């Protein structure tokens, strides 16, 4: 007879059951449904629907712009987090609160505001237009919107890790003769890297899924500034359910592969931690 394992925390069975149920309803069943639906069409049809030139352009824009936006956020989000944690200055609390703004703002409002700002006659757009930079209604606009929505993820994931950086580690490096720059490169940056990758992944994932703010500023020109989620909507509006499903499955698979890759990268970067 198997001995019952003793655990001081009660309710393991119940909570695990709930977790599985919740995961099934919220994640697994919808994904399974998507795949089942897509299996109704033949492989050749699927391939044709998923690889139209318009679709390929849309994937390229969605993943390309998301990647660029996540990279921008990784750099500037890290600087923001660094400044907010390491220095004291007036209005710091206020600035810290502002970081969450993109979280709280309805995406449609963000999209509307950004497209107004960056339109050729907008506050910022009017200075960019003479330089030949078309910020709104172009792929650049997509990057701007995705950067906006992804920014808090990097800052908020890095902040606690930066706060927990031991001052003494930097002092130890100094007593061993290391300059501030050397200390940053050899010790602080490698320590932050796993967290930075997490923040990058979150911002990236958010950008891939972003819809609301992008469609206002993108201009949505087919083959040029049309993101994949929008193309799915367009297919649906054409009652082309199979086309929409094919696109959705491609998005899903690529996102999944990307997240796994990023997870492995993060594990590699944190190999010397617990």
């Amino acid at each position, binding site marked *: 007879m198997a001995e019952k394992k003793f655990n001081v925390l009660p309710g393991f069975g119940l909570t695990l059951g709930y977790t599985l149920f919740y995961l099934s309803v919220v994640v697994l069943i919808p994904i399974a449904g998507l795949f089942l639906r897509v299996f109704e069409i033949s492989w050749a049809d699927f391939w044709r629907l998923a690889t139209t030139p318009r679709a390929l352009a849309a994937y390229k824009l969605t993943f390309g712009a998301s990647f660029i936006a996540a990279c921008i956020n990784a750099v500037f989000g890290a600087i923001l987090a660094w400044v907010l944690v390491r220095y004291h200055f007036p209005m710091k609390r206020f600035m810290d609160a502002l970081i969450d703004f993109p979280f709280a703002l309805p995406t449609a409002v963000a999209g509307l505001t950004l497209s107004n700002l960056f339109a050729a006659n907008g506050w910022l757009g009017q200075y960019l237009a003479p330089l030949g930079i078309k910020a709104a209604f172009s792929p650049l606009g997509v990057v701007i919107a995705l950067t906006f929505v992804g920014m808090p993820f990097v800052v908020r994931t890095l902040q606690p890790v930066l706060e927990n950086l*031991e001052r*003494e*580690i930097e*002092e*130890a*490096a*100094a*007593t*061993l*003769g*290391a*300059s501030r720059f*050397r200390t940053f490169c*050899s*010790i602080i940056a*490698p*320590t932050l890297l796993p967290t930075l990758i997490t923040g990058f992944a979150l911002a990236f994932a958010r950008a891939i899924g972003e819809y609301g703010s992008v469609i206002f500023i993108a201009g949505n020109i087919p083959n040029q500034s049309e993101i994949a989620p929008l193309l799915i909507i367009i297919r649906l509006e054409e009652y082309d359910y199979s086309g929409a499903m094919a696109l959705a499955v491609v998005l899903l698979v690529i996102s999944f592969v990307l997240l796994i890759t990023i997870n492995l990268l993060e594990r590699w970067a944190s190999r*010397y*931690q*617990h």
Partner: protein
Amino acid sequence: MSIELRNVSKKFGGVTAVNNVNFSVKEGELVALLGPSGGGKTTVLRMISGLEMPSEGDIFIRGERVNDISVQKRNIGFVFQSYALFKNMTVFKNIAFGLKIKKWAKNDIHDRVHELLHLLGLEGLDKRYPHQLSGGQRQRVAIARALASKPSVLLLDEPFGAVDAKIRQELRDWLVTLHNDLNVTTLFVTHDQEEAMEVSNRIVIFSRGNLEQIGSPREVYEEPNNEFVARFVGVLNVLELTVQGGLARFGELEFPALDRPDGSKMRIGFRPFAVQISSDTSAYRCRAVLRHTFFLGVMLRLELELPSGLVIRSRMTKEEYSALVLKDGQEVSFIIKRYRILRGEGEPLSPEIHSGDTAFSTHGAGI
């Protein structure tokens, strides 16, 4: 002189952390900076290292004034209380870090690191990361890293604070051995007087930013400069007596106080060893009840409750204890063989006064 501090003060904002401190450490000495937390000892250590700048005064290392030399250039080894190992580097890279910065040749780095690994008993651990080490091992890696580039002084901040009691004892013994082997001038901060007494050649005692006394462990224990030192190093029983007719009294205890007016207060302090106990209640004039006996290995600590309810502490060896046939709750008689008159925290103490070993009926014997 290896290290010298001249009129060194440090203020943080309006708070004086270190107040006009002067002392020097000879080449090859092992010195403890002892004091209660907030006494300024860590600040002194950090000023020597260059992590903190003195507000006033000068610091010399090997005769050179180092006030304007940055921490990076001072060539000191510093061991932090939390070890502050680089988590992203292996043991080897941790130890090699300072050498790489000083641009040692690769072969020399390899040899030096392995020499240190051998010296500190860390062989075979060079490829481990800090989180794969025990507390004692981390401590030794931190020391190896600090010693790597042959610093002129080794500074340790509460080096044994974060390990458990048994390992602490091992590390103390081991630090003494290491110091004997390397003979590098070593300063360490501790708040544990036993640790300071056991490990160091000399002790520098701080309290509230002031240097109270410097001396060998024996000097600070037997000849404390003031009441603070006497109370901080070792145990001191303190009695407050009232003077009447040239005698200072506390219950049955009487001490000569010829020059003091009636009704004035006098305080005395005495070490536990100065209390002599007899199981014969008429052997000495004062009586007390033996409340508790604590066995501390070879030594025993006894707590005596005086008729007034005050508890004083005594110490004796196991042999003395066996000879006396004592048990808890028993009534005993005792005398205080040696004591000093206390004049307040920072004030000097009176010389030690011997009461004599005879029965206490002859007041004022041995003055």
